[in-house]
């Protein structure tokens, strides 16, 4: 199914959709993060209500060779609750900003989930047997009168229905004055970073009462504040290297070996701006909402309001590629500013690592409005726009590409810019680490698409 043309010969088909059908969306149901684990067997979502839902892929059915296993609910739990900062009389939202999985080391699965202020390490474990035949307890848990016990028996484990339990193993709190936007697990699998608007902290997964501040961009005088941190990520292979992006469209690469406080970057990635093009909106739309390293670690991708940029770590002065996500919005910036959409934070992701490693194809994906999402093939430079909609509900039906008509005569099947629904945003997407399976979150629904298998 690869085709000579590269990744964009992939034919995407609807597989599943999760969530309520009704249009009346409760705030709590707004999906705020989506993440596959390292094997792709598990898919986690977080929402504004502080809840995590984990889906597990069914084992492949040998008789159903036309599709891969479906994702079914595996576990769901309340990760964060609303809290109150008494000193400032401010509510701390329970919304899950990010989920990151740890690589699996034993039978249990571990993930980090974070809201604005507190990061939690969750252990998800399975229980499929339970002890029976206690001497001092009845089966229903009531205690037996010891004087009635005349013989002793050895309790045995008997199978039971699978139970999946989530328990918080570590709570990493009180280290962030500002709002956490990113967490990233180091390739050493022992430490991780958490980033807020002005600071980045380094933690050890075992230690909750201490963290090291590694970046601090808070100015002595807050009146001088010009830039905030928008995202941060560890390099996939170099445990001493991380990057952070800013609201001014810059990315700084830091080396923790250089000094304890990485306020001075090792590299600064910035595309020079054409001063004649500068407008009131320039800085706002240049703000980077997401940064992701490629699986090899040679490249990184950034998402700003209108585009996706690919950077070569060896070249700081400009990106190697720029892909326009929805350039037609440039002439709508005034109304997008008025309805706050200009501040929407879109994420981006790379396709699975195997296909990148074998240089088969490299594709990047990101969301847009009207429940559209976009993919760009780095090799062929082709792009595609698809829609996450319940209207394309039949499994194995190939999704039809969409086209937005920027101006002038609208062709049949095209959608005009003015008809786009700006309340239908796809901010979060994820790509299975090995297969061509993608998870796309609309406001309150999770769509799973797969490539068509022959």
């Amino acid at each position: 199914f690869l085709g000579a043309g590269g990744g964009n010969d992939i034919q995407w088909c609807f597989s599943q959709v999760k969530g309520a059908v009704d249009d009346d969306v409760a705030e709590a149901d707004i999906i705020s993060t989506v993440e596959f684990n390292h094997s792709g067997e598990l898919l986690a979502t977080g929402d504004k209500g502080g809840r995590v839902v984990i889906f597990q892929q069914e084992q492949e059915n040998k008789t159903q060779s036309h599709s891969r296993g479906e994702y079914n609910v595996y576990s769901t739990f309340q990760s964060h609750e609303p809290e109150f900062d008494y000193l400032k009389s401010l509510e701390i939202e329970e919304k899950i900003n990010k989920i990151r999985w740890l690589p699996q080391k034993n039978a249990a699965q571990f993930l980090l989930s974070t809201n604005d202020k507190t990061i939690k390490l969750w252990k998800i474990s399975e229980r499929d047997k339970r002890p029976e035949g206690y001497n001092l307890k009845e089966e229903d848990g009531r205690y037996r009168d010891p004087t009635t016990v005349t013989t002793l028996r050895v309790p045995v484990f008997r199978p039971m229905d699978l139970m999946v339990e989530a328990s918080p193993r570590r709570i990493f709190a009180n280290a962030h004055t500002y709002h956490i936007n990113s967490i990233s697990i180091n390739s050493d699998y022992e430490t991780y970073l958490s980033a807020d608007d002005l600071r980045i902290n380094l933690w050890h997964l075992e230690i909750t009462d201490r963290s090291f501040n590694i970046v601090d961009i808070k100015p002595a005088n807050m009146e001088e504040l010009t830039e905030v941190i928008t995202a941060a990520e560890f390099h996939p292979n170099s445990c001493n290297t991380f990057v952070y992006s800013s609201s001014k469209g810059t990315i700084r690469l830091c080396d923790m070996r250089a000094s304890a406080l990485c306020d001075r970057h090792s590299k600064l990635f910035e595309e020079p701006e054409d001063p004649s093009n500068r407008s009131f909106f320039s800085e706002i739309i240049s703000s980077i909402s997401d940064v992701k390293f490629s699986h090899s670690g040679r490249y990184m991708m950034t998402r700003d309001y209108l585009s996706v940029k690919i950077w070569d770590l060896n070249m700081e002065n400009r990106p190697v590629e720029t892909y326009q996500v929805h350039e037609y919005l440039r002439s709508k910036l005034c109304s997008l500013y008025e309805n706050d959409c200009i501040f929407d934070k879109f994420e981006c992701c790379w396709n699975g690592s195997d296909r990148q490693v074998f240089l088969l194809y490299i594709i990047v994906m990101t969301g847009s409005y009207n429940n559209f999402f976009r993919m760009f093939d780095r090799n062929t430079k082709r792009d595609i726009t698809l829609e996450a909609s319940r209207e394309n509900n039949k499994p194995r039906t190939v999704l039809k590409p969409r086209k937005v008509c920027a101006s002038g005569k609208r062709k049949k099947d095209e959608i005009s810019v003015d008809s786009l629904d700006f309340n239908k945003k796809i901010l979060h997407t994820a790509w299975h680490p090995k297969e061509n399976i993608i998870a796309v979150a609309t406001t309150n629904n999770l769509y799973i698409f797969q490539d068509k298998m022959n």
Partner: protein
Amino acid sequence: QDMQEKETITPERAEEAKLKAKYPNLGQKPGGSDFLMKRLQKGQKYFDSGDYNMAKAKMKNKQLPSAGPDKNLVTGDHIPTPQDLPQRKSSLVTSKLAG
């Protein structure tokens, strides 16, 4: 500048002109960027009886302090009154994704 040449305005600049026509005072505040300050102070501010009573004591006339036009702005004088309080959130249920 050659005034005889028709100046092409980029779409971005045209949008900027539209915005400035609607909001003439935009972008004229001194100090750090408005967006950044707003971003740092995101979060629902609630009624703080301590702040409220301190502010009341400060007032020369007996007018009650109110939150002001921007309810999210957190400074000493912008204090929500009980009337400005939003509804508390309803209790939590299982996610519909799991249903």
